[in-house]
């Protein structure tokens, strides 16, 4: 039957694709170059907006290093320049108290393992997050300054500008409530974050996040990340506090501590 043959062909095609794909841990021995050929065509020229800037708009995947432990987003060999009080607090914190686990914001630059979207206009760039909570960040591109003495918030106040092909986002006005990662790294309201976004290719977003918080770290430091472009999918509505099954099962300390 046509349907069966179609399914069979699809299956065998995906079987072939399966060699070396993410869920086949073994890799299958497909040539790495061959794998690149099999990937969908998300390489190509970077789209540009009418005013000639790179267009960062798109649906992007998460970067694992911004989920579990931001230390893994440092350059190889670097360690997190964290002050003793903060390292101690990170050790003592228990996952059930993580605001993220309780459907409160993850803040910046923490990611959840879900897609996120950039919508770029000349005067405003918006980041839309599927999770951990269904929310957004605004990056004001209209030249405005940060408010003096802003109310501290979970996502802060962000202004952005272009430096050549790089979007530079400057954010202050954070509260001290969110945790940087599952590893529970803390911060203070002195936190000042500079993000630099580049789109070297149609399918790839590179970013550098410089964390400057003299209340928590001994010096500013930079985290490096990237997100792949996602196609043929969309942000799904994710209402975290509607069915939060996990947090009641987190009874104690992370055993890595």
């Amino acid at each position, binding site marked *: 039957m046509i349907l069966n043959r179609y399914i069979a062909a699809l299956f065998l095609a995906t079987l072939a694709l399966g060699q070396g794909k993410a869920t086949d841990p073994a890799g299958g021995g497909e040539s790495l170059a061959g794998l690149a050929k099999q990937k969908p065509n998300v390489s190509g020229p970077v789209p540009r907006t009418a005013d000639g800037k790179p267009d960062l708009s798109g649906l992007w995947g998460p970067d694992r290093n911004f989920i579990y432990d931001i230390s893994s987003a440092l350059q190889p060999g670097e360690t997190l320049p964290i002050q003793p009080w903060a390292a101690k607090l990170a050790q003592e914190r228990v*996952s059930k108290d993580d605001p993220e686990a309780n459907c409160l914001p993850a803040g910046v630059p923490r990611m959840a393992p879900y897609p996120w979207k950039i919508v770029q206009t000349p005067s405003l760039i918006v980041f839309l997050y599927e999770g951990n909570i269904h929310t957004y960040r605004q990056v004001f591109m209209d030249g405005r300054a940060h408010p003096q003495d802003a109310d501290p918030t979970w996502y802060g106040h962000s202004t952005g500008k272009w430096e050549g092909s790089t979007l530079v986002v400057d954010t202050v006005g954070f509260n001290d409530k969110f945790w940087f990662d599952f590893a529970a790294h803390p911060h203070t309201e002195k936190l000042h974050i500079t993000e630099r976004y580049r789109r070297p290719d149609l399918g790839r977003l590179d970013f550098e996040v410089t964390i400057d918080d003299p209340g928590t770290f001994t010096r500013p430091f930079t985290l490096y990340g990237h997100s792949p472009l996602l196609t043929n999918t969309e942000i799904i509505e994710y209402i975290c506090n509607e069915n939060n099954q996990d947090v009641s*099962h*987190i*009874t*104690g*300390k*992370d*055993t890595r501590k």
Partner: protein
Amino acid sequence: MRIRFGLAGALLLATIPLVAQTASRIPRMPDGKPNLNGIWQTMNTANWDLQTHGPAMAPVVAMGAQAATPPGIGVVEGNEIPYLPDAAKIKEANYAKRLALDPETKCYLPGVPRATYMPYPFQILQSAQSLMIAYEYAGAARNINMGKPKEPPTDSWMGWSNGHWEGDTLVVDVIGLNDSTWFDRAGDFHSDSLHVVERYTPVSADTIQYQATIDDPKTFSRPWKISMPLYRHLEKNLQLMEFKCVEMTEELLYGHLRKEPRKQQ
């Protein structure tokens, strides 16, 4: 004279306490602690009903006497399970629908202490640094932490066990149990506040006296205890076999989602 000496000797032997004689027969690890290694099993009907119970028909007529509830003397000290009033109603409701609701029917993990008295063998694997219990039923397994007590990072079906020795008794403190298991097939249940303390006391080379204290203030008005002997399997070359009962429950759980209904046996 010889006879008098022999009599004196016999009298002397008779006065050595039985406990000391027993204790000297218990196998021991190099550090002197009892060696609980071996394959063990209970011989009672606690898995049907912790309390003393009479026989009852099988829920499936075709199974006749094979699946009838056998009678049995209970294992609860005082034969009373002190349910709080609301909890007692839940137990009744459980009992009325026990075949459908019992997690055992779906081959779900049995929790503690039920794993101990299910009608299948289990093996204690004890070394200087580790103590693991492997149960034949559903491949359930527990690690007993014999070092500094730790708290459970998450809850689980088989709980989180911290153990230590009190003389020759292995005391295992079990917390972090979820609320999804039953104590028996009769609908005896608990909440996620369950706290179980087990005591394994070898009383001979081939018998351990097992006691479990059940403490769950959301379900029971006071802690209560069960106790029973664990008997060592003496068969040569006995091994736990693989009882992955998941396969045996797939029709029950997913049969209604099949493309074609399964042909009736």
